[in-house]
């Protein structure tokens, strides 16, 4: 579906994407995970054929985005980071108007609009204006709009950024159904829980480069341990590095952060017992499963969400 080799995007002196290789298979849910400024959105804009690659090879649906941009876009669905719905049109008109951009007949546009409103649970709001809708509703409408042309690939740029937890879960559930229908999903996110929920496979980006690639599970297995112990010390903050030195040798790795110390171990409870045996008394102890956040921290030395 998507094939990229040595893809580069430069804006003047600034290089946003520094030679990445990506391949997305049909029916896959593929994610770009990384902090703000990692080059995710620039990559997405190249894939959605609005921004030409500076160098490297890019094929979408077997076509060249520079030469066949229009034909490719006809088969893509794009849900941008910033909502760009028409605020002076109704919910339904936003969909029927958009359908016309794809050359659909009015009747077909209306049929698909009603079907999609049902799918994103906005049927009751069909006649209302866009402006008073909540952020989650607008996002769902944007996703419905992205599907009006029954696309082969749906591109979602940070689909749940800025939404409250309830709205995020509803959105994830809808996207999961979309995936079950066999639609290829490509999304960017800086939330590891989102990537774990939705992606079959993902790449971790940092500074315009891909630093790791694989399924969420395999990445965790490769770059982290099964469990992580989070320790907070009452007088921590400045002394976390000293505590980390005292913890050396427990588990596979010790990582002092400004607010806490992370202890990577396959058996978290055994590690906690060892901490206590050494006479250290943290003010809080949390044993949890490893996440992509730990993978990212291991790869870049920074946390994902700043």
């Amino acid at each position: 579906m998507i094939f990229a080799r040595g893809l580069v995007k430069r804006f003047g002196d600034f290089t946003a994407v520094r030679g990445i290789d990506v391949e997305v298979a049909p029916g896959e849910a593929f994610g770009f995970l990384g902090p703000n400024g990692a080059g995710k959105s620039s990559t997405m804009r190249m894939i959605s054929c609005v921004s030409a690659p500076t160098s490297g090879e890019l094929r979408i649906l077997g076509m060249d985005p520079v030469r066949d941009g229009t034909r490719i876009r006809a088969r893509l669905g794009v849900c941008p980071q910033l909502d760009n719905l028409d605020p002076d049109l109704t919910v339904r008109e936003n969909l029927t108007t958009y359908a016309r951009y794809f050359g659909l007949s009015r009747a077909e546009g209306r049929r698909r609009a009603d079907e999609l409103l049902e799918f994103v649970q906005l049927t009751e709001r069909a006649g209302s204006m866009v402006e008073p809708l909540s952020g989650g509703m607008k996002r769902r409408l944007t996703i419905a709009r992205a599907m009006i042309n029954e696309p082969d690939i749906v591109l979602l740029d940070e689909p749940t950024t800025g939404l409250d937890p309830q709205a995020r879960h509803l959105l994830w559930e809808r996207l999961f159904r979309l995936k079950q229908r066999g639609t290829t999903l490509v999304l960017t996110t800086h939330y590891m829980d989102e990537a774990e929920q939705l992606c079959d496979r993902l790449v971790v980006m940092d500074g315009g480069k891909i630093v790791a690639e694989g399924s969420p599970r395999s990445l965790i297995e490769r770059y982290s341990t099964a469990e992580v112990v989070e320790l907070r010390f009452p007088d921590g903050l400045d002394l976390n590095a000293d505590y980390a030195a005292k913890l050396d040798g427990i588990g596979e790795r010790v990582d002092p952060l400004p607010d806490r110390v992370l202890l990577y171990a396959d058996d978290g409870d055994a590690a906690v017992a060892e901490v206590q045996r050494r006479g250290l008394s943290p003010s809080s102890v949390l044993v949890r499963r490893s996440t992509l956040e730990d993978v990212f921290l291991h790869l870049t030395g920074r946390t994902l969400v700043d």
Partner: protein
Amino acid sequence: MTAGTVHPSIAVLERHLTLYRRLWRASVFSSFVLPVLFVVSIGIGVGGYVGSVGGVDYLSWIVPGVVASTAFQMAVGESTYSVLGDFKWVRAYHAMRATPVRPDHIVTGHLLYLLFRVTTAVLVFLLVVLFFGALHSPWAVTVPLVCALLTVASAAPVTAFAASIESDSHFSLLFRFVMIPATLFSGVFFPIEQLPALVRPVAYASPLWHAVELCRAATLGAAPPWPVAAHVGCLLLWAVAGTLLAAHRFRRRLED
């Protein structure tokens, strides 16, 4: 065109029309009522003191000027805030860009919409002044065509301008230094022969002047000052160059 498909420019036009269906009431006064009031105030009020210009009464003389300047002001006005807004605030153009609609389709769709707006206003205006007895020749039927050409000739470069700026405060400068002077000194209210010889070439460059002269020739049934082809040629030049420039600006702005 086969059944069920639609040209992308038409799809863009349809979006504007859908929006207009919701907002048209607000434009009734400025599009239809004001031009008529203008004719009454200047044509009849001031006309009482003027006597005749170029052998006709003042009302008949300024009517073609007012119709062309109405088309001009509408074309310019509708290509400013709404165009910048669709880039900056609504981001509707970005939404279109993600579909098979190309930047040049967006520009032509916008211009088609303006043609619709201007033509309806011009037809209503012509009907009103017909009852004032201000149309003296059957050639008056060509006035909507001239105004359509003027619409593209003036809206296209302004659209290109709107696509090139970041702040809407530039528009008040456009209105004050371009649109209003053009309206006042393009032969709408008095013959440009009265302008100082130094300023006259500026009027020659303005698309409005060419349209005013063509409209006046049509409603009075007289020959325009330059050959018709020369006037039309100047308008076409503005229209084509403006449209190409606008499409170029749209492409650049939507690229990155």
